[in-house]
């Protein structure tokens, strides 16, 4: 069993094609593992019957030497993607019982490529959070424990915490995530896996429950960089149903992965060296720079001067868009309804009961910053600063091929440690948010362990639609880091 679960996505694909295993066998192994890791609370819904039915079809195709690039590979789906006939919750009470009569474009692409759906993973409610603790279904748990404290449960990061936890805990071969402010990269960093946010517009947003439309982007969460490339190929593509989807062909992201970084210029932004950053993270970052230099890259000191303003900008724009995007949850057409004497009361009762505290905070902030008299001071101002942040990156990418920085300013923290202070929680995304505002691709690669024995990630950022180059740099980093540590819970499987 352990052997099967140890195969990464690329290896499992090869094993299936070679007939060394079957999709059904692989899928069963993961379904068993999901049962064995229920304490991770990684899944909101497990679709075992559907998984086995899909696997059976895959096996028939594989037996005939047919099938797509992901044929027979069992994966998990963040429960923000609408899946036809399967409960879709966004980890919110307000979507109680919602079974979409449609399938998101990204998941539809994945099933078209042959992937098998294991189930829907946990997340922060409406993807609003950095620890998976705002989920109506309870927090997902990080498979890792601190070396000196095996008892304390740690967060897997968020919002794609369930996906990260499932991949890191071997309860999925790979998973989809979404990244609005770091929701793929930060949990990938916290759980020792690879998480990639593609360029805005690379993956369709159609059928993904919207949080902040100008920032949301789906991406892969996998064990390796090569897996990320394979998975992204299955997710990406132009979609006429999404007006912001990029009308570009999807390149073969796996080609050129091993080409190395010789001759590439890697930028190191000085503004990411923030006050109070733990020394071990600064050290790992320096180590990363050395690795890439040793691999033949040219290191360039760069400046992204508006970096310090990215988080405040994000915490105006994202809540503003969210306050509007979440207006549709009103108890009329789907999900929870809490009755009231009038229409307005029914709305307020439903939304008051259906949304958790963090979602309510963001709706209120978003409503406020868009309201008459405050729009220019907050929202327009934030959009102007967003311009400056984008301009910083545009200028940087005139001279560099990629940018290297830490993924997050800390390692995984204990469940409950930061929930009482929303602003402190927001600081988790300090290194990831600028990229979302600029619309650029980025990837977190596990690069080392903290003093507490927890994984730390390094982040590579790329220029618009240069995912292939980004993956190439990430692969070089992955090779040099040779991250082989595993959470203790994986012992003996």
């Amino acid at each position: 069993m352990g052997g099967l679960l140890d195969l990464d996505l690329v290896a499992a694909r090869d094993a299936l094609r070679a007939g060394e295993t079957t999709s059904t066998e692989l899928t069963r192994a993961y379904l068993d593992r999901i049962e064995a890791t229920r304490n991770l609370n990684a899944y909101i819904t497990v679709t075992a019957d559907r998984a086995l039915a899909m696997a059976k079809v895959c096996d028939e195709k594989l037996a005939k030497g047919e099938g797509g690039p992901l044929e027979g590979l069992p994966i998990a789906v963040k429960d923000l993607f609408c899946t036809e006939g399967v409960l879709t919750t966004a980890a919110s009470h307000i979507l109680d019982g919602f079974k979409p009569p449609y399938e998101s474009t990204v998941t539809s692409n994945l099933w078209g490529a042959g992937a098998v759906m294991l189930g829907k993973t946990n997340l922060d409610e409406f993807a609003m959070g950095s620890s998976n603790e705002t989920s109506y279904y309870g927090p997902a748990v990080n498979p890792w424990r601190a070396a000196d404290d095996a008892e304390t449960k740690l967060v897997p990061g968020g919002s794609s915490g369930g996906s990260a936890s499932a991949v890191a805990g071997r309860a999925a071969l790979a998973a989809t995530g979404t990244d609005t402010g770091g929701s793929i990269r930060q949990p990938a960093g916290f759980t020792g896996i690879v998480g990639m946010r593609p360029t805005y517009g690379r993956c369709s947003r159609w059928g993904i429950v919207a949080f902040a439309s100008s920032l949301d982007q789906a991406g892969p969460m996998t064990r390796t960089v090569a897996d990320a490339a394979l998975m992204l190929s299955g997710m990406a593509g132009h979609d006429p149903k999404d007006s912001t989807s990029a009308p570009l062909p999807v390149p073969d992201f796996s080609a050129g992965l091993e080409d190395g970084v010789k001759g590439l210029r890697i930028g190191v932004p000085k503004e990411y060296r923030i006050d109070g950053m733990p020394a071990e993270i600064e050290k790992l970052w320096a180590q990363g720079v050395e690795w890439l230099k040793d691999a033949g890259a040219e290191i360039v000191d760069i400046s992204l001067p508006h970096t310090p303003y990215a988080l405040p900008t994000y915490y105006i724009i994202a809540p503003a868009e969210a306050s509007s995007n979440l207006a549709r949850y009103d108890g009329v057409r789907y999900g929870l309804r809490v009755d009231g004497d009038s229409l307005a009361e029914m709305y307020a009762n439903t939304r008051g009961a259906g949304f958790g505290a963090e979602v309510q905070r963001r709706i209120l902030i978003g409503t406020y910053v868009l309201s008459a008299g405050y729009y220019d001071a907050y929202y327009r101002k934030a959009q102007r600063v967003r311009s400056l942040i984008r301009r910083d990156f545009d200028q940087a990418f005139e001279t560099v091929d990629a940018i290297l920085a830490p993924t997050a300013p800390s390692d995984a923290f204990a469940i409950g440690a930061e929930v009482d202070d929303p602003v402190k929680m927001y600081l988790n995304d300090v290194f990831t948010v600028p990229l979302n505002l600029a619309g650029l691709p980025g990837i977190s690669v596990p690069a080392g362990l903290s003093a507490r024995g927890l994984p730390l990630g390094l982040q590579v950022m790329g220029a618009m639609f240069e995912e292939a180059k980004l993956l190439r740099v990430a692969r070089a980093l992955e090779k040099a880091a040779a991250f082989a540590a595993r959470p203790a819970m994986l012992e003996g499987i």
Partner: protein
Amino acid sequence: MSLDKATVASIATLARLRVPDDRLEPMVGDLNAILGFVEQLNQVNTDGVEPLANVTGHALPQREDAVTDGGYPERVTLNAPDPAGDFYAVPKVVE
């Protein structure tokens, strides 16, 4: 800028969120902390800078005018908490 309880209550009304009285006070604190945090932006000189609303470089795609969707009222009301035939139902609206 600092929000008081009454302002937060009126924003909640505008956002159609029932915030019970005992949750209002902590909410006021949280929102003021967040607003205090985002007000750092006042330090940035944005004179002459255009607001950025979209990061994509392409133009708005436009579809052909053809009937390609609809015709499935049962799917439209499938998840409705209180459907009435093919209608949605809500508490009576008095105009």
